[in-house]
Every structure is written in structure tokens, then in C-alpha cells.
């Protein structure tokens, strides 16, 4: 024991390490800082796991467009515990994004970004951007069909930048096509530039936490007055604060421990993400989708009105970043309690709801045609019962002309266009002919692609699609059904 103490003193005298670390460990934090404050630590833990597993994966992964996909399969199937390392890296990446989002939400709801913690918030915003960039470049590392066509989408968006679109795209792709230099460019970002930036930002974030202290739980009436805040806060911490280790750290430890066990369980049970199909762009029977952190963006891009989507795609991200950075400058004093900031609570609620809804929309993507709907889905039998041969023929034309790719019957088929189960109650025979031949309302015109016999058949079929006991649609201006008394007079 004495020897150990002696050695430590020897090291301390030469390094001053304890003198440096002690304030980090034992600085006073608010007594009431309880479970709300664990999410930042969990984010940092997942980031540490990303670094460790990432370095391990880099020892086998081949960052070359010709071999990346094969090397991932090699890691999954041949390298001992390779699949588990990839699973940990993938699940921990998602967990890091989720924890960071919860952490940010908590900081926003408690207005911890107010004086003097404006820069804590801003470094946090840049950490968020860096993390999302790591997630996107990580998806590219998988170098499968989703990665290839995801890059295609990135290239198409860069291409829409006015004047410099061509150059921006070339910088993104590292050349005139999506290829070897694209993967290597993203590899350099993913393993050197972005982790370096993240580590530097985490360091800055930590320095600011030590300098400004951890904010107290908000209390209605306990307003932030910049001119007196720091002095009063330091007095309160001195009098009533508790040392970070062990009082606050123990909660972080419990939460991080549970997270870690959960992570290992998820990784072991569900395994690694992909790689999906081989990145051969001539295999076009693919249905590219982004990873979950970007599903809401995929949804948003799909739902934009085409006329303004270029402007929105290029300008909206800049505005979002600007607003996030501006948050602490727009209001850096006054009340912190959520109950006194109903508008901000509402804003947070709306944002979370919007992202959740867009993620759901992106996952189900009702705007995408079901590419094999026409060939793989049966015609529901109740829609064929009692039909004439012409109408049966129409049901065949309906399948073969790929109508089912965009229109559903009995809930199955594309959701791009309206469901047609009761179309005959909404469109009359003449309107159906017009709609099929001329299209419109985001439907292609089939006039040139169906001959008149096919059109007659398919419209014949469609005009039988109405629920029992509901009348057919009438052409506006056509003779209205007469009241029952009038019929006998006529």
C-alpha cells in the first residue's frame, strides 16, 4: 500500500495528473441534477464504443470500391467475432444518435443553453452535425446498393446547386461517376476527418462543462440574470452542490451500464446491418432506402412540392443549422422552467412529432410504386365474382398495364394513386375513360398505350368497383335520378 502511494506521489510530482483530473472528477454539481442528466454521458459512451469498434473494423475492412463489399462479408462470416463487431458498430451508431437527440431535447426543454452556456449549446449543435455526417458516411462504408443509390441521391441534390452544381457534385463524388474515389473520399471523412472533429468538439464541450458547471434543474421563478448569474451559481454550488464523483456519476454509471448491456443484447440478437445487395449499378431491381437517422429526410424530400423542392433542399438545411446556432442568442436570460415557456415546449413537441411522422412516412413510403404489384398480387376474388367476360378481361388488363403498381385493391398494391375499391362511386363511366386515356392528377396518360378494346375492358372492370348497395357515380350535368313518384308519371 505504501509502495502504491509512493508510486502515485512520484508520478503526481512529475506529471501533475491528479491536479488536472481532480477538478474534472470532484467539481460540484447541483444536488437536484438527477436522472435527467444521464443522456450526455450515454452519448459519449457510445461514441467511445464507435472509436474502439471502428478501429477494429478498419484492421480488416478494405476501403476500395472493388473489394469493400466482399471484405464486409468476410468480416461477417470468416473473422472471429467479426459479425459482432460490425453489429456493435452499427447499433451503437444508432444508439448514439438517439441518445444525442434525447440529450439535446432535455437541454432545450430545460433551457440550459441560456447564459453562460451558449457555447455549450453551439458546440453541441456542431457535435450533432458531425455525428449525422458520421452516420451518413458510415452508410457509404457498407458499399451496397443502398449506399450506391444513396450517393446517387446526394449527387443529384448537389447537382441542383445553381452555377456550381457540377463542381459540387464532382467534389462530393471525387470524380465524374460514383466509383472508387467516391468510397475512398468518404472513408477518409469517416475515419480521419469527422472523428477528429468529433473528438476536438467533445473536448471543447467538456472544457465548457467544467468552466460553466452543470445547470440546475429549472424552477419557475428562478430566472437567469446574466450580470449576477455566475457569482450566485458558484455560491450555490459551493454551499449546496455535491461532487460529481460519486454523487452524480453513479447515476451515469447505472444508466450507461444498462445501455451497454442493452447494446450487446441488441447486437448479439439482431446482428450487423447489411451489407445489402452487391453495389453493381446494372442490377436495377433495387429499392434504395437510407438508414434510420435519415429516414425523415427521405420522407421530407419525397413530400416536397416539385416546383419548390430544389430551393427547399438547398436552403432548408442551412436555415435549420442557423436557427439551431441562434437559439441561445434569441433568448439567453429569464425563465428556464418548461411551465413558463409553453411556446418552446410546443415547438419541441411539434419538431419531435414532425420527425417521427416523417420517419414513419419514409419507412412506409406510400409515394413509391410497388414495382412488382402488377405481377405478384392476386385480384381479390370478390372483385371477379359475377363479372362479365369483358369485365374479367378488364381485370387482366388492369394487372398487366401495371395499374396495380400505384393503385391498391383490397388494401394491396401501390399507395401512390387512390385505392380503387370503390372508384365507381366517385367516377362515372365517361370520367373513367377520360382519366385512363388522358391521365392527370399525377397519373400518366394511357391513351397511346392501351388500344380501344383494352380501354373498354379496363373501364368496364373499374365501373363494377363499388360496394354493394352504393350507387354509381353520375356524370355532372347528366340526368339526375328522378324522385320515385316522378318515375311513375313519366
Amino acid at each position, binding site marked *: 500500500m505504501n509502495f502504491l502511494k509512493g508510486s502515485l506521489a512520484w508520478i503526481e510530482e512529475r506529471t501533475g495528473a491528479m491536479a488536472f483530473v481532480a477538478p474534472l472528477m470532484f467539481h460540484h454539481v447541483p444536488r437536484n441534477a438527477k436522472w435527467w442528466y444521464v443522456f450526455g454521458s450515454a452519448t459519449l459512451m457510445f461514441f467511445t464504443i464507435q472509436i474502439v469498434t471502428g478501429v477494429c473494423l478498419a484492421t480488416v475492412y478494405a476501403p476500395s470500391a472493388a473489394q469493400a463489399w466482399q471484405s464486409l462479408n468476410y468480416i461477417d462470416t470468416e473473422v472471429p467475432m467479426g459479425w459482432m463487431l460490425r453489429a456493435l458498430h452499427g447499433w451503437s451508431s444508432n444508439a448514439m444518435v438517439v441518445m444525442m437527440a434525447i440529450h439535446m431535447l432535455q437541454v432545450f426543454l430545460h433551457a440550459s443553453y441560456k447564459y453562460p452556456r451558449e457555447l455549450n449549446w453551439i458546440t453541441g449543435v456542431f457535435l450533432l452535425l458531425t455525428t449525422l455526417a458520421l452516420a451518413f458516411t458510415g452508410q457509404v462504408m457498407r458499399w451496397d446498393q443502398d449506399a450506391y443509390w444513396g450517393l446517387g441521391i446526394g449527387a443529384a441534390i448537389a447537382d441542383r446547386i445553381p452555377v456550381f452544381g457540377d463542381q459540387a457534385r464532382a467534389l462530393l463524388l471525387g470524380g465524374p461517376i460514383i*466509383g472508387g474515389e467516391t468510397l475512398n473520399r468518404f472513408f477518409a471523412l469517416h475515419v480521419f476527418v469527422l472523428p477528429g472533429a468529433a473528438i476536438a468538439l467533445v473536448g471543447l464541450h467538456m472544457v465548457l462543462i467544467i468552466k460553466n458547471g452543470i445547470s440546475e434543474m429549472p424552477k419557475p421563478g428562478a430566472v437567469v440574470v446574466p450580470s449576477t448569474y455566475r457569482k450566485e451559481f458558484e455560491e450555490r454550488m459551493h454551499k449546496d452542490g455535491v461532487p460529481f464523483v460519486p454523487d452524480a456519476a453513479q447515476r451515469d454509471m447505472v444508466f450507461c451500464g444498462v445501455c451497454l448491456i442493452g447494446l450487446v443484447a441488441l447486437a448479439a440478437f439482431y446482428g450487423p446491418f447489411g451489407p445489402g445487395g452487391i453495389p453493381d449499378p446494372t442490377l436495377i431491381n433495387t429499392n434504395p432506402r437510407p438508414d434510420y437517422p435519415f429516414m425523415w429526410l427521405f420522407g421530407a424530400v419525397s413530400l416536397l412540392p416539385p416546383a419548390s423542392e430544389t430551393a427547399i433542399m438547398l436552403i432548408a438545411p442551412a436555415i435549420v443549422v442557423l436557427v439551431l446556432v441562434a437559439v441561445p442568442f434569441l433568448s439567453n436570460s429569464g425563465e428556464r422552467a418548461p411551465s413558463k415557456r409553453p411556446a418552446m415546449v410546443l415547438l419541441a413537441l411539434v419538431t419531435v412529432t414532425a420527425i417521427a411522422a416523417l420517419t414513419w412516412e419514409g419507412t412506409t413510403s406510400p*409515394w*413509391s410504386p410497388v414495382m412488382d404489384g402488377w405481377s405478384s398480387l392476386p385480384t381479390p376474388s370478390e372483385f371477379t365474382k359475377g363479372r362479365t367476360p369483358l369485365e374479367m378481361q378488364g381485370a387482366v388488363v388492369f394487372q398487366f398495364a401495371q395499374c396495380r403498381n400505384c393503385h391498391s385493391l383490397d388494401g394491396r398494391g401501390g399507395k401512390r394513386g387512390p385505392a380503387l375499391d370503390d372508384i365507381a362511386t366517385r367516377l362515372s363511366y365517361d370520367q373513367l375513360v377520360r382519366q385512363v386515356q388522358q391521365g392527370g392528377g399525377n397519373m400518366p396518360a394511357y391513351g397511346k398505350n392501351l388500344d380501344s378494346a383494352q380501354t373498354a375492358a379496363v373501364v368496364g372492370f373499374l365501373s363494377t368497383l363499388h360496394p354493394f348497395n352504393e350507387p354509381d357515380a353520375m356524370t355532372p350535368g347528366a340526368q339526375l335520378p328522378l324522385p320515385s313518384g316522378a318515375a311513375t308519371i313519366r
Partner: protein
Amino acid sequence: MSESKEKSCGCGGCGCGSAPAAASKSEQRRGFMFKVGAGLLGVGGLLTALPIVSYLIGPATKRFSNIWVNLGATSSFPAGQTRFATFLNPIRQPTDGDSAKTACWVRCIEAGQFQVFAINCAHLGCPVRWFEQSKLFMCPCHGGVYYQDGSRAAGPPPRGLFEYAWKVEGDALLIDAGRLPGLEESV
């Protein structure tokens, strides 16, 4: 150290430039040396940065021109039909692997008359598929639809499909290909 104590600027000899006019000779020399050092570092830094920056923005400054690629005999594209064709990108790099493979749709309007469409949807670049029965191209991403002549039929694309320039040499159909098609160019 005694020198800095003598000074009255209050900055503790930090070299901030507010030294009194009666600074000693060695201090003047130090100020000069600092300027020379800053200048040399600046020039050296610029000289180093120049190749680094040019290297990094190289992809945007280097010009790539398309090259005529042989898609095969014209007889493999029957009149009135639209067929799938693939080729190796002529401006591929050694490390491209499978990603150098490229696909396109070849429509033979009548003997000797062709339209060659890029596989990429004009909306966000996803690969469009041809449906012979309805004579439509459909995109799996956001539902862009095109007619058989490549013109936009429905969905979010801002224009029709990108077309490659083509020519027939002898019996072979050639297209002018290479760069990933994009809105800024006609391809």
C-alpha cells in the same frame, strides 16, 4: 526577466507590441525575428497549402469528356422495343470495381432510329425500370413516371429522362457516355 519588470505597459513582457519606445536592442531584435518568422511560416504555409488544396479540389477542376462506347450490334435492339443494355464506363478508374458498370435503356423507334436513356431518374438519380406492357418507365424511389419517349409522365421529376447521344457505325450502336448524368448537362 528584469527587462520586463522595467516596462510599464502592464502586459508582462508578452511581446504584444506595446513596449515603450526605449526598448532595448535585444528586444528590438526579438520583434524583428518574430516578424521574419511569421513571414517565413506564412510563405511556407501557402506553398504547402497550394498542392494540398489543388489535390482536394482536383475532381472539380479536372475535365472529363465523354467517350463513344459500343453497346453492341443494332440487331440486338429490335424495332419498336425498349431493351436494357449495360456497358463499362469509359472513364473508370482502376479501383472502381463493379461500380464502373453502367446501365441504360435503348429504344429502337424504327430501324436506324434510336433513343438511349440514362438509367437515372431525373428527380434524384434512382434507377428507373421499363414496363413493356404499359410502355412506361417507373422509378422505385419517389414514383417518377416517364413515357416511352422519355418525356415526363407523372411524379416529381423536373424533366424527362436524360438521353445519350448515339450513332451507328457499321452494324454497331455507339453512345457518347461517361459522366454521371445530371441536370446541368444534356448528356
